[in-house]
């Protein structure tokens, strides 16, 4: 069979069906192999490209593994102090109402130290898009417990597993947020399989579209992995995510616009 001929025949510009978006820079992402942050970045960049809003978008990077988001997503970006991205976004959006403003935050950032800023930006219904990467751990600092860490899950500060009596329950911050009248669209997604990726991208796109329509806060949680923190291979981590994270953080839209 003319195997190689075929491959070479196929690989040509007019047959191109998928390639890295231009809104991602050429910098190699510093994330660990298989880390969902990379995928989430890519989806945001693809949405920005598809909506053709690169010149009108301002991103906010958190403190967390994604602190260097600005090296990868090719839009004007501010790096916020730990947990305060929603405060930055609030000011930027109010001062630049026609720009697309999004925050990108980890679970420690958004749901621990930044709880007040998160809740109040959403309660005010700031017209921004928040992307929330829930990997159940503090990735950047070496795998400590996050507020979303599952019960029994081992981290470097819960080496014997998270104990409810001592550390409480994994916080359902996205549900709290959905209950606030200021949020317009709240969804929980994942990015570790092709079909999840497709759905997640749709959700992110919706979130940006609602921002365009001035609807208030749009919020997309992405249940993600941290294979380094979880001390697994990427493939193991994704399996563990399916088996353990998704039952606690079930995927799907949590709050959808009523008109629909």
């Amino acid at each position, binding site marked *: 069979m003319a195997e190689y001929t075929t491959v070479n025949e196929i690989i040509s510009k007019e047959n191109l069906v998928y390639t890295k978006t231009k809104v991602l820079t050429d910098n190699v992402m*510093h*994330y*660990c192999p298989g880390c969902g942050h990379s995928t989430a970045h890519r989806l945001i960049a693809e949405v920005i490209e598809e909506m053709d809003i690169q010149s009108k978008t301002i991103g906010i990077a958190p403190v967390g*593994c994604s*602190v260097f988001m600005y090296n990868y997503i090719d839009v004007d970006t501010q790096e916020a102090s730990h947990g305060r991205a929603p405060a930055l976004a609030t000011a930027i959006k109010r001062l630049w109402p026609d720009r697309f403003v999004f925050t990108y935050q980890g679970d420690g950032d958004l749901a621990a130290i930044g709880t007040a800023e998160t809740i109040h930006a959403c309660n005010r219904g700031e017209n921004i898009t928040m992307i929330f990467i829930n990997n159940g751990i503090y990735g*950047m600092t*070496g795998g400590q417990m996050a507020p979303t860490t599952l019960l029994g899950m081992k981290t470097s500060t819960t080496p014997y597993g998270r104990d409810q009596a001592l550390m409480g329950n994994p916080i359902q911050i996205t549900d709290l947020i959905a209950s606030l009248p200021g949020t317009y669209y709240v969804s929980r997604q994942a990015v570790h399989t092709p079909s999840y990726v497709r759905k997640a991208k749709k959700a992110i796109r919706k979130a940006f579209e609602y921002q365009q329509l001035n609807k208030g806060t749009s919020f997309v949680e992405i249940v993600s992995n941290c294979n*380094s923190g979880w001390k697994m291979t990427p493939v193991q981590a994704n399996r563990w995510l399916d088996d353990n994270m998704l039952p606690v953080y079930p995927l799907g839209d949590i709050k959808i616009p009523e008109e629909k």
Partner: protein
Amino acid sequence: MTEEIIIAGFGGQGVLSMGKILCYSGVMQDKEVSWMPSYGPEMRGGTANVTVIISDERISSPILNEYDTAIILNQQSMDKFEPTVKPGGILLYDGNGITRHPERKDISIYRADGAEEAAKMETTRTFNMIMLGAYLKIKPIVEMENVLKGLKKSLPPRYHHLLPLNKKAIQRGMEIIREVNLVNA
């Protein structure tokens, strides 16, 4: 006597624990020691290194710009640390994955293909002990007896059954080391 060492490679190669065992060996031999790792999210990138100092005197700075000895376990570390060996110093490296071999003429260069060798042992985890053995062959700054004591101290008791294997690896390292370039320091 003061010996200033950098050990550098990938995360997972046992760089940090190799340094720690070396230090504990020094402690067993009543020496002053310091162990200073690279730290932080650059570990995401996958590299890891540790500065180890073993000395008869109180140790001043635990962080150095120049080393008596560099133990190098991957290409990135080679690029970064080959230039930092003091003239007349020693560079020991593992050949696996090295695309550009060390070129300096003013230092002594040794090679020990520990990764290859480790693959032949019960577990590839012995890699760092092989390299440690190779190093001790060149610079026997601590006595074997104390190395074994140090090893025992730095391993949690549940791993103590691995001590004989580790000893074997150290000895293996002493055997496989090759001279590449020699200078008189």
